[in-house]
């Protein structure tokens, strides 16, 4: 904004702080819970102040030395699986959606709208409903217990294509004209003009898709029968006892926070890209 209105500034900060409190509060609770012992957590209401068990809980979570077994390997291994899955899904989805949205917006060809709606309809049937037949397809293709099986079926949905379509429609026609005049073909235009312009959308989508891939639970559970292909969320869920047995909430929360570090890093890195994208579009 152009002027500096101190009142408006103050108001902005106030609203943002309120927003942050509302949104980040549960996160704060997770942190607090990870610094106490389990008994302190279960005695309601749990105190809002951090406790003294921070180092203990986090080293237990990382080294897997909880009461009983659990070893270091599973945690590290699971983080690797989560990382690969998240990256493949994020990159894969963005790549194919950029291409599809480009085709739909910038070309005329028979059945164009049909394909748009066909892609769009993939948002309309939740995964859980079609999970049994999807599993069968993956199994028949021999993709069980593989990164391919973990990632490719999840690339199918339309969110990214829809977003890019929205964005491409806002790109001024003059740019296309200019490219044509320059003698550039469609792919040159795509590579040199459209993709750079879309950087903020791509960044936003990367964050969303990375986290989506990182937090996958039900699909990996079904598609892998070997525990060394389990992502980290399954490991966390596994510590939460569904029955009456003791759940070590403090360790669960500590592990959850550790598991949140890569997505958090992604978020922070992408912030930079937003700003960069902004600078570019100023040209």
């Amino acid at each position, binding site marked *: 904004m152009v002027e500096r209105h101190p009142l408006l500034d103050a108001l902005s900060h106030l609203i943002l702080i309120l927003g942050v409190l509302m949104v980040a509060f549960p996160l704060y609770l997770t942190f607090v819970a990870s610094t106490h012992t389990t*008994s302190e957590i279960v*005695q309601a209401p749990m105190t809002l102040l951090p406790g003294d068990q921070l180092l203990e809980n986090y080293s237990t979570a990382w080294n897997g030395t909880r009461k009983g077994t659990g070893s270091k390997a599973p945690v590290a291994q699971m983080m690797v699986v989560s990382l690969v899955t998240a990256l493949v899904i994020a990159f894969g989805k963005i790549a194919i959606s950029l291409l599809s949205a480009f085709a739909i917006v910038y070309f005329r060809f028979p059945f164009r709208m049909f394909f748009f709606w066909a892609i769009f309809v993939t948002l309309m049937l939740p995964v859980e409903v079609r999970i*049994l037949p999807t599993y069968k397809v993956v199994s028949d293709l021999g993709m069980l217990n593989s990164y391919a099986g973990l990632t490719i079926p999840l690339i199918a949905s339309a969110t990214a294509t829809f977003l890019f379509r929205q964005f491409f429609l806002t790109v001024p026609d003059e740019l296309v004209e200019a490219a044509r005049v320059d003698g550039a073909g469609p792919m040159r235009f795509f590579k040199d003009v459209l993709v750079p312009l879309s950087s903020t959308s791509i960044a936003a989508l990367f964050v969303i898709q990375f986290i989506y891939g990182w937090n996958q639970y*039900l699909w990996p559970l079904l598609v892998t029968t070997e525990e060394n292909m389990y992502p980290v969320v399954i490991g966390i869920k596994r510590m939460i006892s*569904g029955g009456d047995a003791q759940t070590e909430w403090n360790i669960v929360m500590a592990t959850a926070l550790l598991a949140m570090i890569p997505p958090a890093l992604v978020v922070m890195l992408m912030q930079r890209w937003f700003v960069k994208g902004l600078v570019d579009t100023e040209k």
Partner: protein
Amino acid sequence: MKIKFAMVACAAAVSVSAFAQTEIQWWHSMTSVNGEVVNDLAKNFNATQSAYKIVPTFKGNYTESFTAAVAAFRAGNAPHILQVFEVGTATMMASKGVTVPVGKIMKESGVKFDPSAYVSAVAGYYTAPNGEMLSFPFNSSTTVFYFNKDAFKAAGIATDKAPSTWPEVALAAAKLKATGHKCPLSIAWQGWTQLESFSAWHNVEFATKGNGMQGMDARMKVNSPLHVRHIENLANMAKQGLFVYKGRSNVPEASFISGECAMMTTSTGFYGNVKANAKFDWGLAPLPYYPDVPGAPQNTVIGGASLWVMAGKKADEYKGIAQFFNYLSQPDIQAATHQRTGYLPITTAAFQLTEKSGFYQKNPGTDVGVNQMIRKTTDKSRGIRLGNYVQIRTIEDEELEQVWNGKKTAKEALDSIVQRGNDLLERFEKANKS
């Protein structure tokens, strides 16, 4: 020459047995401590022999694991052993060609198998009318009564003997309320504790046909005068603030641990949690009953899960499974599992072994659940086997909630449960008739 031949024979034998290690996939839903018990059982069994290797895989909670198994079965790669919760028993039984009865496997692999060694109230839940054991009882719990001794003392109630009948519970609740206690009584797993186990405990029918054990045409009977009377009592207690509803399944347990609610009916499985986290003096007692009902107290109904053997595997693999189940039934193994997890022992021998070791004295209250079950069962108390039972449990929750918040009377709600439940039972019967 002889030595050479012997060496060759040895080498051949070694290579054959190295090749022959058969893997047996076991899908389970045990988390945290119980998950470690599963891994240890498999590891120890594998160490006793080299022909078979049990491979346990955590497959999510009971619902998720069941979904995974269904998906895998349809795609042709089901596990060998699947842990299924008790409410899924009817479904597993009715599905044709999906499972193989445990009794059959044990018999065919020549493993010594004596069904009478198993506690009737535990194994009976998973046994066919003709006596053949269908699935292997693995983790069974039952319904018991926990009470806060410190709260009792503060209200002037004697704590040497727990309230054993519902009138006594109501009296204790009134005393607690009179001294300002906000939540004298609450219940967890309300369908299981107040309807199912309640019925067995009083030796009355929960559903016809032996609660469904004898046929798929069973229909619910949970709106009988006794049931209506009990729910009405609870509803009145709710109105007076003596009973406070704290949620479905095991959610209310947190309010006992925190000291908020002084009495609670829930599973034996809650014991470990209470022992570790309750900061007050507490006790464990059998489920309360109505003393004027003939035959009460009979026995309570189990919860938990059992191990099913899936069809379509090789004969050799079934042999391995039979050996594993045999291993699990050894009294010392059973006793150790029972003591470590809090789940009921499935054989009488295991119970006696634990008793002899003084475990029950050192851990007062751990024998309450077992004592409720080590009895001869009747046709009405052996267990429950109804189709679509997951949905029926939810219906029970929904209807009872409307009683607690005053929207329905006890009779209306129970009638509704019967009507909606029977609809589901009819559909189950129809779907599985072909």
